[in-house]
């Protein structure tokens, strides 16, 4: 099992969600996030005040899938989230030791 964490533009959420569901993912966790990579923030002046946006709004997705599905899901995310511009986001993949379904204590990939 692998955990796929993807940081994407908020405007791409619907497209990415549809794409990963299409790729065979059953469950997805969506978090509102802020941050920046190479794409730095900017400053907006409004009515004499300075509003600095150094942490940009992003959406973080967390998906845990069986090893066989990882490439397909990553492709789905990249395909749906890419605009080619700076700020499109990142994907991180890490191994998962165990998954447990709380309701019935089911364990392993079937608990996903």
């Amino acid at each position, binding site marked *: 099992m692998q955990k796929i964490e993807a940081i994407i533009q908020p405007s791409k959420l619907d497209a990415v969600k549809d794409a990963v569901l299409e790729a065979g993912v059953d469950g997805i966790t969506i978090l509102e996030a802020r941050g920046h990579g190479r794409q730095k923030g900017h400053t*907006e002046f409004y009515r004499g005040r300075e*509003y600095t946006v150094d942490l940009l709004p992003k959406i973080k997705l967390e998906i845990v899938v069986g090893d066989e599905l990882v490439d397909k899901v990553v492709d789905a995310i990249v395909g749906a989230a890419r605009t080619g511009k700076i700020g499109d986001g990142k994907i991180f993949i890490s191994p998962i030791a165990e998954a447990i379904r709380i309701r019935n204590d089911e364990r392993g990939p079937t608990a996903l």
Partner: protein
Amino acid sequence: MHPPSESSPSSPASIDDLRALYAKESIALEQSFARTSDGVAAIRRRSTLVDTLVRRMLPLASHGKDAAELMAAIAVGGYGRKELFPYSDVDILYLFATPAAEEAHKQVVRNANQIMWDIGLRASPVSRAVKECERLQTGNVEFTLSLLDARFVAGNEALARQLQSQVLPALIPREWTRLTEDVAELARSRHKKYGDTIFQLEPNIKESPGGLRDHNLAHWLQTFLHIREHGGMPGSNAAATPPREDAEAAFEFIADARCFLHFRNKRDDNVLSWNAQDEAAAQSIGLETAGTADPAYWMRTYYRHARAVYRRVTLMLDALPATRLSFYKTIRRRRSPIPGTDFFLEDGRIDVDDNAPLSDADSILRLFCIIAVQGHSLSQRAEDRIAEVFPMLDLHMPEGPFLWNVLREILLGPHAAHALRSMHAIGILEMLIPEFHGIDALVVRDSYHRYTVDEHTFVAIHNIHLLRQPSSEWEHRFASLVKDVDRLDLFLLAILMHDTGKARRNADHTLQSVELADGLLARLDFDPEERQTVRRLIRNHLEMSSTLRRDIFDPETVRSFAEKTGSQMYLRMLTLMTYADIKAVHPDALTPWKAENLWQLYIATSNYMDRSVDEERFHVKSDAALHRSIASLVSKQNDRLANFLDGLPQRYLQTRRPDMIRDHFEMSLGIVEHGARVVLRPMRQLYELTLVTQDRPKLFADVAGALSAWGMNIIKADAFSNDAGTVVDTFLFTDIYKTLELNPTEMERFQKSIEGIASLRTAIEPLLRSRRQGANGANKVKMEPRIEYDNESSTHSTLLQIMAPDAPGLLRRLALAFAENDCNIKVALIDTEGEVAVDVFYLDRNGEKLDGEMQHLLAGSVYEAMDPAFSTLA
């Protein structure tokens, strides 16, 4: 005392017989419910069945001794009320004459309990001596409450009679304070656990606010009051209060639903889960009509009942009379009449005498204005009396300006949502606005809507009023926008109507809401501009939410949204509407993340609007449709219309209705003869002056100076010009000295004066010398004036934004500073935030942007103009 429902059996029974009887009858009971869905019949039947079992098992438990001598078996709690739900515990009290008797017969109670479990009953027994029931047990008010429903089943009936006729009537008045405080605390902490709202996605129909426990609580409180007033249990004399119709209907629905849940889940599970709702609706549980109902409709029925129960119980809890009163409470309890109405204020609640005529619809409506302003609540009696006079009110229901004045006062009151809820609960809101009926308790059945549509609307209105006292940083930001909404009344009306279209399914609800609002706006006698404001807000209330799902830092997203929005005022209202609307979906819907994004979109759009005016100009060749639409309104000189429209900023066209543009065009036709044309239009709190003339140096400075000299305080202004140099300037101002209001004949002289000065037929200097100076007094705002140049946003002009404490004549001094430096104002956007002037000027010099040296030079003049020491008109 409730008599036993059946005489004791003559022959003893075995436990096996009783178990078989219970099993057989339970199956029959379930089958009967499956056929009829009659919950009340089911719980009565099970209570009777358990009565029979208790009477027949008691001889077994006492091993042949006569139970009548030992103790009384008394049904308490729900069983006592004959409301024994299919999988509920059987609460039974074994009452003994003395503690010694109780001690001596402990084994009988143990036996009885064992037999009941053997039969298959989930017994919840308690044994007490009579004396133990005479006092309130600390931390166990529930036991005393359960005694209120005591019903003799078997054994020593005299003991049960003693409990009801002597013990309880003495206990309740004696322990009144503790009892009522404990009961109220218990209820309030339970309500708090459920967020103090009936609107739960998957409600527990026993424990949730408005559920069965609240229904019972109302019954207990009624019993308390009855004992306190009459000295005996209800039913023991003729003065018992009959149950209310709405309470009975709610109980029947909840009884049906709870029986359904028990049979469905095979246990005492009272949560109306998502799936359970679907199944209950499919079987029309609790509904009068048979067949399959829509789950949303079914839940709507549930919420209506829950609302009636919750409202009743909260009114009763609030109205509980206290025994000891503080000085403050004594003052509050004094009865004071509410002038102009039949009502009076007592103990912080609005009440009415039973014999008050209530024949005047106006005074009842006025009552809700008072509630909106002061936040008082109606007593149950006042609500009931108002509900009684419905038919009479219906005959005299006001419309037009009177109705709007009432609605306006209510909407603007800090407790508007509270007043609207009260009106809605009684039915008055729907009488005034029948369009609201469709969303009464309407459920949006998804996982994130916490409230029904009507409640969502009230919460949204409340969210705006909460901004009067902002707490978080971003609340402060949005609160700053409320102050700058000119027509908060229209804005709040738009919120009131924004989701009414949800009642009509399978269609875009925003369009449907506009259609429904149209009927109301017509009845309110609104002018076209007011109608347009409300209609646009309703129509576009999802526009900003939808834009938030795009990349809000993409200039194209901002440009597109700004074009749809049109004006700063409208942008403010739309931002606030989005804020209030999202926050009213559920308490946590507006996360700081979303609030921040909403604010960023607002400021980006606001800045774009201020900085893009002369970039986007109208040209007849590229937009013939608008030209045709205005042309259709023009009766003559049609050929000159294109000249007038060519080169006007899109901002001007977006913020004016076609008929207003037509009027401005017709004014422009009079320039040749009169030099300038001026139209003055009184608005609610402001005056609007529109000037159409040919541009010339110092024009803006002279007109601003003339207005100040007349004692007018300019709040907003904008100045636009077309390719031919015709300017359309609009000034919104307050009449500080009420010159125009108190002397209507001055209106004409005022207009002529402005026309004369604009056309240079009258010199401005004598007017400036003759008028008062420094009329506004010292500005309370202490801030350093600030200017900012932007040479990027426009390809033709340099933008200058100034922020300075507002002062009399400031606008004229600024305009003079530009003129003295040969700078031409191409566009001016004048705004005032509280006592701070926030102005944006598009300037050029000899047709070019201002270079760095010129900017520096002009800055010196502008700072001098903004210096309060120069706060004069000259």
